[in-house]
């Protein structure tokens, strides 16, 4: 039985790969099968893991344990959630704005300070000091390099200043309130592009690695999992 399903998986993988040649009915069939299966699987999982686990089970447990306050809040929240379905009616569409505003309002408020701290303040801190609290523009490290010149001391001495300079010029590059012939913008333009391109180059290389890994994963499945099983089953 395992061989049967593995073989189906191999055939579907090859059908998708046939797109490399050109778009064809086999590829279209495999893609539609994938989309359809995914939707069906998700419907079942959403019912069992969300409707049952997050609505029915907590209400049942609260009822069994006589947790009245929990029960009331769960039922009330479920009713508010059901108001989302009003979107399907032109007349009653306005009702769905209540749960949307509650959801968006709560999550925006909860996320704003946390996101600001995570993505902005901590990152600015990380541009001033390292995780040990030492400043990134560190004269001692530069002095160490001149005392004991080596690749390691050069790396330690230059990493911090390069990072600080890069952050500042790239921030200036994306500053749109000043004319592009402003001296600071003009000065920052080329170095910022340099930093951006190095960053995108690294991302490009990493992305290529990611795509090849997926291909290797499929080939590994076909040649090192399906093929030995096929040989074993057919060979007896």
């Amino acid at each position, binding site marked *: 039985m395992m061989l049967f399903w593995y073989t189906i998986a191999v055939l579907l993988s090859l059908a998708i790969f046939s797109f490399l040649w050109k778009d064809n009915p086999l590829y279209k069939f495999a893609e539609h099968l994938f989309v359809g299966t995914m939707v069906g699987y998700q419907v079942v999982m959403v019912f069992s893991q969300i409707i049952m686990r*997050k609505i029915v*089970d907590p209400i049942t*447990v609260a009822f069994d344990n006589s947790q009245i306050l929990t029960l009331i809040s769960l039922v009330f929240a479920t009713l508010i959630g059901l108001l989302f379905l009003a979107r399907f009616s032109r007349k009653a569409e306005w009702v769905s704005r209540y749960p949307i505003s509650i959801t968006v309002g709560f999550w925006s408020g909860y996320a704003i300070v946390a996101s600001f701290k*995570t993505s902005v303040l901590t990152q600015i801190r990380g541009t001033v000091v390292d995780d040990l609290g030492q400043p990134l523009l560190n004269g001692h490290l530069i002095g160490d390099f001149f005392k004991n010149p080596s690749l390691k001391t050069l790396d330690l001495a230059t990493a911090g200043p390069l990072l600080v300079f890069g952050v500042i010029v790239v921030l200036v590059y994306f500053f749109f309130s000043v004319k592009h012939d402003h001296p600071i913008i003009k000065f920052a333009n080329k170095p910022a592009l340099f930093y951006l391109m190095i960053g995108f180059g690294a991302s490009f290389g990493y992305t290529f*690695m990611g795509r090849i*890994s997926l*291909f*290797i994963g499929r080939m590994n499945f076909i*040649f090192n999992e399906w093929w030995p099983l096929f040989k074993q089953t057919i060979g007896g």
Partner: protein
Amino acid sequence: MKTPWYEKIMSLDKKVLYVIMFVVVMIPLLARWTYNPAVMPEVKDIYDEIEGIYTYNQSHPDTPQGILLSFDYSPSTNAELDPMTMSVLRHAFMRRIPVITWAAFPDSIDLAKNITTFIAKEYGAVYGKDFVFMGYPYPMTAAVIAFGSDVRNFLVKDFYGNLSTALPLLNKIYNYKSIGLIVTVSGTSYPRFWVTYANTLYGKKIATGTTAVSAAEFYPFLQTDQMIGMMGGLRGAAEYEKLVQALETQVIGEDIGSYLRNLYNDAPEGVWDTKIYTPGFSEEELQSHLSTRMSARTGMASQASAHFYVIFLIILANLGFFLSRRAENKR
């Protein structure tokens, strides 16, 4: 006039390049070459952190720390990320660290469940005591916040329908105080979400495993210590796999096959819930368990040769470009 070699290269059909790429990837796979990666500090940090949890648990057996492993990826990226989750689970189960796992997407529920039970079986881990699988904690943000106080109020039942309050593991580990490390393995930007909520608001340590596509995005968080470590792409998986295999050799021995064959011999009845997994390995299963221990390193051999091929193509194409431009300027 004869077409110069560099113009022939520039006009090479893409299909030829695809065929050569196929050959370059297949040879190491079929020859089962492996790759011995040097372990990067960001991967070693995750390993050291989990070892730190093991050391802590040895001296605090009544108040152990656990690991929360979040399967934040769907099957489309399993080639890169499955080796990571398997290695982390092997490490945790080998060190008897309690593990809570869950899946971030509906289509990753089965994947998460299968991998968790697949690895748990290798170490005789008991469901409910050594590990639990919480299914699909929707919405994820609410689950992350719930862990700040008591996750059992939000995740009332586990994936199998057991009450959370009836699981011994969750009676000891139900909030962030008892979580030593959160490991998020993701193919999207989910690790950023974990850093924003679990790390910024609750001060929890986050380790991440990501696909290579997203890895570059998370280096700023590594630099500021918002993440304690990162396994980036298949290479990160190969490095962690290597560390865990060395530990396994130290703790269990060289012959993992014999260890697995004999693991459930003379085992007492009723310890393991057969709904979760059946104790004992068939030969087929044994081969599968042994081959997954090398999957990332086998893949990296093909990865390395693909990279060399692409570097060669880039050099060739650039050479062709500059030579044709020079020839055009001469004309």
